[in-house]
């Protein structure tokens, strides 16, 4: 009799313990989403009312604090660094998946290099860009130096997503193409790459997100300069949107602070759109297979 009540007591204790754990787990799930919602709302609610046409497209002065030149510089950096890094990254992925033999030593070294690049902090990229592109190659503090630095930084993102996408293409497709007499190269370009395209694109989107939010790698390469009106001149030093926000936040004046919120809202809207697009693509790949 006493044994049974003791057992029941023990069981009750265990149940209570489990319930507490379950509550804690749910709490952490809710907390994570809560933090995200808090950050998003905090920036958007204070930022969106401050976005106006003069801020987006006007000339920069102490009144408008226009982000126009930063927006154009950000777009320049995105487009050109992707144009440089995308072919290199995709070709690297093709080499790793389609051409390299298993256990090849070069592959090991390349993989190690890609992993290393992925782990290097932005500020170290910034230092390297400042030493190499700004200094040694003589590009000075310019959008061009920023582009070169960022191109290296996004390589690992593009390589790993392309590699995964290419690996996911069923061997059957390749065999079919080779069996019909197509060469290996033709098979890669006509069969493998088109099939892997959604995965490669999601890598591109992730890279865009990374560039938009980047600041530490660009502050010493493309610089903190702001122009009255934007220029497409790559040798000019221009700040990007993220650095625009950093500079405004650092001023400590109420008007600057409002405009920092506005810049933050623009950044969040872009990042949100980029993430939605990547998720959509990913779910599309999932459905096809």
């Amino acid at each position, binding site marked *: 009799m006493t044994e049974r009540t003791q057992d029941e007591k023990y069981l009750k204790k265990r149940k209570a313990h489990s319930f507490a754990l379950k509550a804690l787990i749910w709490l952490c799930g809710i907390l994570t*989403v809560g933090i*995200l919602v808090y950050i998003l709302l905090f920036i958007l609610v204070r930022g969106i009312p401050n976005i106006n046409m003069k801020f987006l497209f006007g000339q920069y002065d102490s009144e408008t604090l226009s982000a126009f030149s930063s927006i154009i510089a950000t777009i320049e950096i995105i487009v050109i660094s992707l144009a440089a890094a995308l072919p290199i990254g995709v070709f*690297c992925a093709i080499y790793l998946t389609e051409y390299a033999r298993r256990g090849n030593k070069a592959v090991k070294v*390349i993989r190690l*290099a890609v992993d290393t690049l992925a782990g290097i902090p932005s*500020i170290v990229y910034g230092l390297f860009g400042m030493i190499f592109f700004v200094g040694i190659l003589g590009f000075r503090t310019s959008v061009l130096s920023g582009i070169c630095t960022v191109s290296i930084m996004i390589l690992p993102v593009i390589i790993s997503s392309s590699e995964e996408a290419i690996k996911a293409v069923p061997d059957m497709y390749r065999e079919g193409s080779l069996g019909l007499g197509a060469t290996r*190269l033709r098979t890669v370009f006509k069969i493998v790459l088109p099939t892997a395209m959604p995965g490669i694109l999601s890598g591109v989107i992730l890279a865009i997100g990374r560039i938009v*939010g980047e600041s530490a790698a660009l502050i010493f390469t493309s610089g903190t300069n702001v122009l009255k009106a934007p220029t497409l001149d790559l040798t000019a030093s221009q700040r990007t949107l993220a650095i625009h926000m950093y500079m405004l*936040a650092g001023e400590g004046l109420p008007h600057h602070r409002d405009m920092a919120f506005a810049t933050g809202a623009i*950044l969040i809207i872009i990042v949100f759109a980029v993430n939605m697009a990547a998720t959509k693509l990913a779910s599309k790949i999932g459905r096809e297979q």
Partner: protein
Amino acid sequence: MVRSKITNTEHKINLYENVMQIVFFISALVSVMAVIAICLFLLLRGIPAIAEIGFMNFVFNEKWGPANVPASYGILSMIVGSMYVTAGAIVIGVPIGLLCAVFLAEFCPDNLYRIVKPAVNLLAGIPSIIYGFFGMEIVVPFVRESFGGNGFSILSASIILGIMILPTVISISESSIRAVPSSYAEGSLGLGATKEETVFRVVVPAAKSGVLTSIILGIGRAVGETMAVVMVAGNSVMPLNKIALLKPIRTLTTNIVTEMSYASGLHEASLIGTGVVLFVFIIILNTALSLLKSKSSRN
């Protein structure tokens, strides 16, 4: 005649194949060359400065005063600072992240998963600058009002970094928890354990190498983070015996970013030297990571 034409086009195709194969290989080598260039130029500029200051005088000296006469370039306080904020980030981020990963892998209903998972991804995509600004506007005043001090502190930096490493910890832990064979859990449940007991005594321990990987990646992110930390940490160089949770702190990364814009000569080189020390930390973490990877793949 016809035959020679065919062999001709075959030759052309072969040539094209071979050329492209070389192009692919060279593209693959770009990453290797980039890593070599980064190491080389960082060391080339950083090592002479460290040598001139003296290694011990640089790494194990807590006095940082480039404007002093004579100038002193000790970064010990920043090394310790980086360790403190990283440890703080781990203390805050890992428990929440791990429990959230358990939530996603084991407890989250499907329709909720469709909201929570993208939310975690979005958290990973938010720029450092936004985290920093959020920290400056919300976390710093919160710390100031609840715990005293001026708010710019190790604690504020740890909270912000703790949030920033959440997505890394969550997504890698989640996938390693999902990779645990369901027979493990079934065995435990069959013996009468509750679901929660099963998760914490059987499933999570089986996923421990993945969880460890996520923690190391989180450490890497926290050590290297710059812009978010610079906005909330206060950036004063503290003597070692004055470092405290509610006092300002300067880390390796923020030392570079706060002074680089006006530094020159040995001062600038010593900041690059700071970058070299940071880089060494990252290399150590990367090595730990690849050791862990090869160990778990052998098992």
